[in-house]
């Protein structure tokens, strides 16, 4: 099986381990990733606040490139990329006449033949394969953190429950983890304010991390580069705001799955985290 692949900027920059682990896991489950040729910026963070037409045209260009390459589906692991791509797709499906205008702007035909999927959606299809290949169960209590963009807005993404989503929990459970029932799955992490208002991000992440630890989670699991950098990279600021020293690691779901499949940690970029992926108790100790 093959699927289009749109890494986007984060996966080549701050979240290289996400890129590495997605590729490693997909290889292990037999899914070929075909990178969209000559891809461009998805327009996240800035385009959609500045120029609506541009914010639709940029993702449309990516999808048009994928279409030209004969792809029918594109996987966008970054939640922000996913949101922009599926947002543009959905808008153009609702207003088919805008497709002509967009095609003019991007100077290539856009027909809407390519669908957009996130990493959870793709892995869910391989849930049984993943379970079968999980030779080293990740037997730890985990807090699955979805953030804001993977399951919202519900009418656009049409995927999982917008509040208290379940798919990541189910996938984590397939590889032996015990997801905790906690209320912060879709709470705001501060996202792009990481740079401009680090204080806010520290406060918001503080609540998330603190609550996960209180409920005895041993790891936070995410599927979004921004969530990851805020929860991982901003940990010193977070701890300072909390007045605590919380060392709970933050893993990408693909890393959790990869580890359980016995993929070499280095291949999954585990060493790249700011908060080291280390556990106080041995595997399964909490059980």
């Amino acid at each position, binding site marked *: 099986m093959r699927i289009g692949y749109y890494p986007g900027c984060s996966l080549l920059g701050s979240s290289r381990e996400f890129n590495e682990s997605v590729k490693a896991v997909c290889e292990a489950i037999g899914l070929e990733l075909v990178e969209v040729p000559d891809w461009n910026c998805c327009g996240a963070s800035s385009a959609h606040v500045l120029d609506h037409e541009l914010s639709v045209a940029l993702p449309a260009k990516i999808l048009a490139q994928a279409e030209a390459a004969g792809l029918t589906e594109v996987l966008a692991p970054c939640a922000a990329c996913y949101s922009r791509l599926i947002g543009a797709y959905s808008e153009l499906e609702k207003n088919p006449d805008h497709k002509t205008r967009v095609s003019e702007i991007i100077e290539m035909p856009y027909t809407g033949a390519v669908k957009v999927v996130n990493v959870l959606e793709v892995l869910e299809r391989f849930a049984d394969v993943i379970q079968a290949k999980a030779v080293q169960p990740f037997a730890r209590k985990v807090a699955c953190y979805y953030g804001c963009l993977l399951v919202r807005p519900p009418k656009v993404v049409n995927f999982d429950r917008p*509040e208290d989503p379940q798919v990541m929990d189910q996938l984590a459970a397939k590889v032996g983890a015990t997801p905790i029932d906690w*209320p912060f799955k879709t709470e705001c992490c501060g996202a792009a304010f990481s740079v401009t208002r680090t204080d806010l991000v520290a406060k918001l992440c503080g609540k998330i991390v603190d*609550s996960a630890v209180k409920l005895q989670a041993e790891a936070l699991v995410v599927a979004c580069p921004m969530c990851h950098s805020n929860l991982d990279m901003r940990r010193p600021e977070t701890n300072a705001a909390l007045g605590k020293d919380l060392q709970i690691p933050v893993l990408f779901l693909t890393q959790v799955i990869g580890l359980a499949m016995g993929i070499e940690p280095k291949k999954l970029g585990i060493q790249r985290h700011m908060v080291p992926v280390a556990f106080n108790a041995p595997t399964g100790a909490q059980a």
Partner: protein
Amino acid sequence: MSRIGVFTCHCGENIAGTVDCPKVAELTRQIPGVVHSVDYKYMCSDPGQTLIKEAIKEHKLDGVVVAACSPRMHEPTFRKAAAEAGVNPYLCEMANLREHCSWVHEKNEATTQKAADLVRIMVEKVKHDTPLTPIKVPVTKTALVVGGGIAGIQTALDIANAGHQVVLVEKSPSIGGHMSQLSETFPTLDCSQCILTPRMVEAAQHPNIKLMTYSEVEKVDGFIGNFKVTVRKKAKKVDEKACTGCGLCVTKCPNKKIPDEFNEGLAFRPAIYVPFPQAVPNKPTIDTANCTYFKNGKCGVCSKVCPTGAIRYDQEDELITMDIGAIVMATGFKLMQTDKFPEYGYGKYKDVIDGMQFERLASASGPTAGVIKRPSDGKEPETVVFIACSGSRDRAKGVPYCSKICCMYTAKHTMLYKHKVHHGQAYVFYMDIRSAGKDYDEFVRRAIEEDEAKYIRGRVSRIYEEDGKLIVKGADTLMNGEPVEIKADMVVLATAVQSQDRSEDLAQTLHISYDKYGFFAEAHPKLRPVETNTAGIFLAGACQAPRDIPETVAQGSAAGAKVAALFSQDELTREPIVAVVNRQAPPLFSTCTGCFLCQTACPYQAIEQEEIKDRSGRVIKTVAKVNPGLCQGCGTCVAFCRTKAIDLAGFSNEQLFAELMTL
């Protein structure tokens, strides 16, 4: 040659604003057969009608076309006027220049042309109109009231007190409905059961009311004055005549862990049960889905202990068919369930309850005997958050309409809570306070000012559990959207009022319309609020839209009065728009060949077979015959008949043909 008068109405500016009415009058004057054509500012006004009547006399008109608004609006008005001036009312037709022309088109020549065309169509129709006389049908003076809540009880009592027979059908084992579950009622805080129970008893004992509990309407045929209704009387598995209502079976039933519907799941009941102590009739019913005997044939305790041998495990559902003259729908509402709210935990938190559950907690007859205890651990909640508009006015995830009763009952809840937990604090999150009604706003002010409920204008974005408390996160929009976080012991959601489950199915059984939310549709939102589009079927209470008790009672009485008015005559006058099978001179007798394929096409079983006999009684021919009492005038048979032997009065082949020929 016809002598037709055309009367073009300006409807003030409504028509004249876009249509050149004098020109329409002038253009239509030239149509052959039109002998008089004028325009006037308001044809429906008294002077307007007089103008028509005088013109009929002066010009000896034999047909009238009023070019004005929709015939659905004023056809009866003008037909009456025509009749008063001596023209058969069915020779008066309306051309719809307002809804179908002036209101939907721009002011220009094409619009005026269209207006003239619309008149031309109706002139041709009038030319082929035949004088018709209304049909008289007898009326069965028994009403069926569906639903035994306060709406149905009120309606039934009013009709019965007017001296007519009533069959009151209730699907659950007791009448009383939602009102019997309430603790106290706004804005007087009088005890709900204290005012309702006497009405329930009165309904049960009324000589003119036949009570059918645990029964549902299965089938409705016929038409106004002459319905044939089949009711399924579900088997209670208890012989109501033999049972004395001693309650021994209820106390002895070993299976006592069934969630109690009357207490909204906050308590349990046995498999053989009486819904609540004041139930009417006060006789038990076996819940066969949960009864051990019906599950595996063992047990049989109730049968063994019954002193009168009233338990009937072999009792079957009964189908009872009856003749009914009018039907009142009073099937009530249901509340949206708490599991519909993702941000409030999809119903997983035990202490997030809905308004009706709070009523049971506050009710002296409830599971806690009126002491406010939270469901999870039975502790007295010291902080309670009430969330109004839970699902109401929520276009994204709930229903767009206002549920109407929540503002008031939430205010009532804060008061009941404060009166029982003196040191407790109630918070109310709201969007707007809608307290229009006699003594209503005063009531809400009392909740805020005397009982110190804290009202916060804003929505709650999330509820989660932490350390045994419910963390309620919201915003106070009157404080610049400042985030608010309240650690509550219990949360009460004023969930949206919705139509009953399967209300669409029931509406289809009765052939009445319903809106997209499943509420039954009234015939006119302002002028015919308790009637449906199907003659002889009326509405009362929350099955039509969210309603509070005073409105429900008023509507129940209104529907009762409608039925009483209908029953005040022995015969009904019906529109003569019915199908007729032609009769011809011998040897043809009729162009009908007697294939009777029309019989299966008729939705009303109105087509019968008639034998045409010669003098010696020998059957010459068998042809179709339409029963005018049953025919509703849809014309399906007319379009189906190959020999054109059937025609529809008022919409005949000749008329439609002539209308088409004008185009």
